[in-house]
C-alpha cells in the first residue's frame, strides 16, 4: 500500500477500490466503530437532547468567537501561557520552529493533532534537523509507513493488524506477532525513552475552555499526558474554533465526543491543562505555548451556508457512517481531512475554491453524515452549496454545463418534456434488447457499466392519464366522514405553523 495516486478523487478512488486490503480494513473498522457508537448512543437514552444541546453550545460559541477567544487568551496568559496567533499554517510552523531553534531542541514528541497535519509540523521540524516523533500508536504506525492519517481518530484505519505487525517488526528488528497487545507493548517500550529524552512536547487540543484558559485533551493511550507531563516545554496547536465557554459545557462535549468517536462513555483520559506547572509542582512543563491557528477557518464566519462547519468537534462519526468513505478510504481525499467533513472542510478552508477538484462530487448526498454528526452539521447540504459555488464561479465541465442547459430546456415546459419522452420511446429502439438498454455509450457509460436500464414503456404516465382517469372515476368510493374532517382540519391549520412530518 502506498499513498494514493491520481490528481482527483475519482482517480484516487479507482485505485483504492482495487486495493482489497484497504477496502476490507476500512470496512471492518468503520463497521466496528459505527456499531459501538450505535450501542453507546442507545445506552445513553437521550441522545437527541444531548445532540441538540451540543449544537446550541457550538453555534453560540462560534457566533461569539471573538469574545470567547479573547477570554481564553486572557485567562491562559494569566496562568503563564505564551499565546501566539497564526493566521496561516505557515505562521504556526514558523512560530513553533522559532521556539525550538531558540531552545536548541533536538527532539519533539507529539500527541495526536489534526491541526498539526494542516501545518505539516513534522516535516517542518525535520527540515531543521529536529526529530519529531508521533507517540499516538496510530500516528506512530503511519509515520513509520510515511503516510498521512486516513481517518480523524483512527489514523491507520486503512491498515490491518498484519500490515501493522510488519511495519513495527521492521522497526523492532525482530518479528512481532500480529496481536494488538504485543504491538502496543512494543510501541510502549520504544516510545517511553523518546518521551524521557524529548525537549519539547507538542499536543493538539480538543477544546479550549474560555473561562479558565484551559486546554482539554481526550485520549485513550496516555501519550498526550506523557507529552504534557515529561518534556520541559509544551507547545499546543489549537484551531481557533476549538473553544467552549465553560467547564459546564465540557460535560456536554464529553458526552458527545467519545460516544460518537469510539462508542466509549469517556476516553480513558480527559485532561485539562491550565498553564505550565506551578512553581512547586514536581512535574509538568516549565514553559507552555499555545499557537492559535486560523488557516482558512475565519473564511466561514459570516457565511450563512458554511459557518456551522466550525461547530465540528472532530469525532470522525461522519467518516464511519459514510458509504463513500467506507469504500474508498481516507487517502482518496485530497487534503488533511477525509470523509464527508473533509469533502466540505478542505475546499472551505481553501476559500471554497472551485478548483478544488471533484471532491464535492464524491457523495451520493445520502445524509448519513448528518444523521451521525453529534452537533448536527448539515454536511449533505453544504456539499450541494459547494457544487453550486463551483457552478456560479464557472468551474464546470463543458459537457455537464451543456447537459444542464438541456435539462432546463426540457423541464421548463411540460409540452417539451412530453415530446422528449415520446422521442425517447421511438429513438431507444436501436438500443433496447429484451426490454433493457445495456450498451455503454456516451454519458450513460458510467451507468451501464454496472446496471441495465429498462426501456421506456410505449406510453408515459401523462399519455395514459386521460383514459385512466375516466376509468378510475367509476371506482371512487365515498370518503369516510372522519377522514374528510381530518383533511379539512389539516388544511385549516396551515399557515399557522401547523405542519406535518
Amino acid at each position: 500500500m502506498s499513498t494514493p495516486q491520481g490528481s482527483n478523487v475519482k482517480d484516487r478512488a479507482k485505485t483504492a477500490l482495487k486495493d482489497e486490503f484497504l477496502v476490507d480494513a476500512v470496512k471492518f473498522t468503520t463497521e466496528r466503530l459505527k456499531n459501538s457508537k450505535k450501542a453507546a448512543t442507545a445506552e445513553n437514552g437521550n441522545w437527541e437532547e444531548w445532540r441538540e444541546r451540543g449544537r446550541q453550545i457550538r453555534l453560540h460559541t462560534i457566533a461569539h468567537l471573538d469574545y470567547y477567544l479573547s477570554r481564553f487568551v486572557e485567562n491562559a496568559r494569566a496562568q503563564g501561557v505564551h499565546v501566539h496567533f497564526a493566521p496561516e499554517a505557515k505562521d504556526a510552523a514558523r512560530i513553533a520552529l522559532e521556539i525550538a531553534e531558540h531552545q536548541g531542541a533536538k527532539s519533539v514528541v507529539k500527541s495526536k493533532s489534526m491541526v498539526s497535519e494542516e501545518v505539516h509540523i513534522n516535516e517542518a521540524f525535520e527540515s531543521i534537523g529536529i526529530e519529531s516523533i508521533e507517540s499516538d500508536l496510530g500516528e506512530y504506525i503511519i509515520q513509520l509507513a510515511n503516510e498521512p492519517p486516513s481517518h480523524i481518530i483512527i489514523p491507520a484505519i486503512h491498515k490491518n493488524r498484519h500490515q501493522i505487525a510488519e511495519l513495527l517488526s521492521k522497526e523492532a528488528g525482530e518479528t512481532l506477532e500480529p496481536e494488538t497487545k504485543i504491538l502496543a507493548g512494543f510501541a510502549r517500550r520504544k516510545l517511553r525513552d523518546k518521551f524521557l529524552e524529548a525537549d519539547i512536547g507538542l499536543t493538539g487540543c480538543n477544546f479550549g475552555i474560555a473561562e479558565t484558559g484551559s486546554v482539554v485533551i481526550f485520549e485513550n493511550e496516555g501519550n498526550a499526558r506523557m507529552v504534557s507531563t515529561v518534556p520541559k516545554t509544551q507547545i499546543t496547536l489549537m484551531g481557533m474554533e476549538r473553544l467552549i465557554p465553560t467547564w459546564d459545557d465540557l460535560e456536554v462535549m464529553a458526552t458527545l465526543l467519545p460516544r460518537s468517536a469510539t462508542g466509549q462513555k469517556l476516553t480513558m483520559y480527559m485532561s485539562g491543562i491550565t498553564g505550565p506547572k506551578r512553581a512547586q509542582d514536581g512535574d509538568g512543563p516549565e514553559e507552555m505555548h499555545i499557537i492559535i491557528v486560523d488557516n482558512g477557518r475565519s473564511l466561514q464566519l459570516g457565511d450563512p451556508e458554511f459557518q456551522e462547519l466550525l461547530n465540528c468537534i472532530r469525532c470522525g462519526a461522519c467518516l464511519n457512517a459514510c458509504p463513500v468513505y467506507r469504500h474508498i478510504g481516507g487517502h482518496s481525499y485530497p487534503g488533511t481531512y477525509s470523509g464527508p467533513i473533509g469533502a466540505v472542510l478542505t475546499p472551505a478552508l481553501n476559500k471554497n475554491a472551485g478548483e478544488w477538484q471533484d471532491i464535492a462530487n464524491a457523495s451520493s448526498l445520502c445524509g448519513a453524515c448528518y444523521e451521525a454528526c453529534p452537533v448536527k452539521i448539515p454536511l449533505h447540504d453544504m456539499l450541494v452549496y459547494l457544487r453550486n459555488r463551483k457552478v456560479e464561479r464557472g468551474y464546470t465541465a463543458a459537457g455537464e454545463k451543456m447537459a444542464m442547459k438541456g435539462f432546463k430546456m426540457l423541464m421548463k415546459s411540460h409540452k417539451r418534456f412530453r415530446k422528449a419522452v415520446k422521442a425517447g420511446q421511438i429513438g431507444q429502439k436501436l438500443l433496447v434488447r429484451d426490454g433493457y438498454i445495456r450498451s455503454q455509450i456516451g454519458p450513460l457509460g458510467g451507468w451501464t457499466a454496472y446496471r441495465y436500464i429498462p426501456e421506456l414503456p410505449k406510453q408515459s404516465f401523462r399519455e395514459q392519464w386521460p383514459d385512466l382517469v375516466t376509468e378510475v372515476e367509476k371506482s371512487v368510493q365515498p370518503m369516510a366522514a372522519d377522514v374528510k374532517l381530518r383533511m379539512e382540519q389539516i388544511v385549516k391549520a396551515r399557515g399557522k405553523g401547523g405542519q406535518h412530518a
Partner: protein
Amino acid sequence: MKVSLFITCISDALFPPIGEAMARLLARYGVRLHFPEVQTCCGQPAFNSGYWDEARASAQTILKAFDDSDFVIAPSGSCTGMIHHYYPKLFEHDPELLEKSHRLKEKTYEFTQFLVQVLGVTDVGAYFPHKVTYHPSCHGSRLLGIKEEPMQLMSHVEGMEFVPLPYAEDCCGFGGTFAIKMSEISGAMVEEKSQHVLETDAEVLVGLDMGCLLNIGGNLKFQGKPVRVMHLAELLYEGVKNREYAAGV
C-alpha cells in the same frame, strides 16, 4: 378537496404503473386524484449538481402545477424532500415564489405518509404471497423521517413474508448524477447493496423511490438475478387485486 398527484419525472417516463396504482388505491378511500399536466421535474438533478438556475426553471413548473391543490402526493421521498427542504432555499431571493414554496411544502406528502398520516390507513386489505425485502431510501427515511409508515402498511399485507434487508439504511449509491460522475464508487455501492438483497433470498425488493430502485434493479438485472423490483404502491395495489381475485369479485 383537491388532491393532486406529483408523479415525478422518472415514474412518469419509466414507471407509469406506479401512478395508476396510486390512483386506483386512493379511489378506494374516496380520494379523486387529480393530475396537473404542467408539472415536469422537481429539479433535483440540476439542484444537486449545483445548477440552481436550471433547477428553478424546472421547479417553477411544480409550483405552478400545484398552486391550487389542497394536498400533493408523490411516490418518492426524494422528490418530496426536495420540495420540503430545498425549495425555500432555491427561491429565497424571490418573495412571491418563496411564499409559494412554503405553501407547497406544507401540503406535499410522500405517498405512504399521506396514506397513513392523513387517510389513517395502515391495512389496505392486500394479499401478496411472496418473500419481500424493503430498501428504505435515504432521503425519505433520513430527511423526511419516513420509517414507520411503510412498515405499518407492509405488516398488514396478508401472506407476505417480510425479510429485513441487512444494512438496510446504507445508501444504494444512486445519488442522481453521482452515479455517472463517480461511477466506480457508485458501482461499488450498488454491488454491495445488491449483495445484501440477494442474501435475503427475497423474490421481491420493494421501496419508495424509483431512483434507488432503478439503480438496484438495474444492477440486479445486470447480474442476471431474477429479483422483482417494485414500488410499494404497486405491491399494495397488486395485493388488493389478488385479494379481489381470490374473493371472486
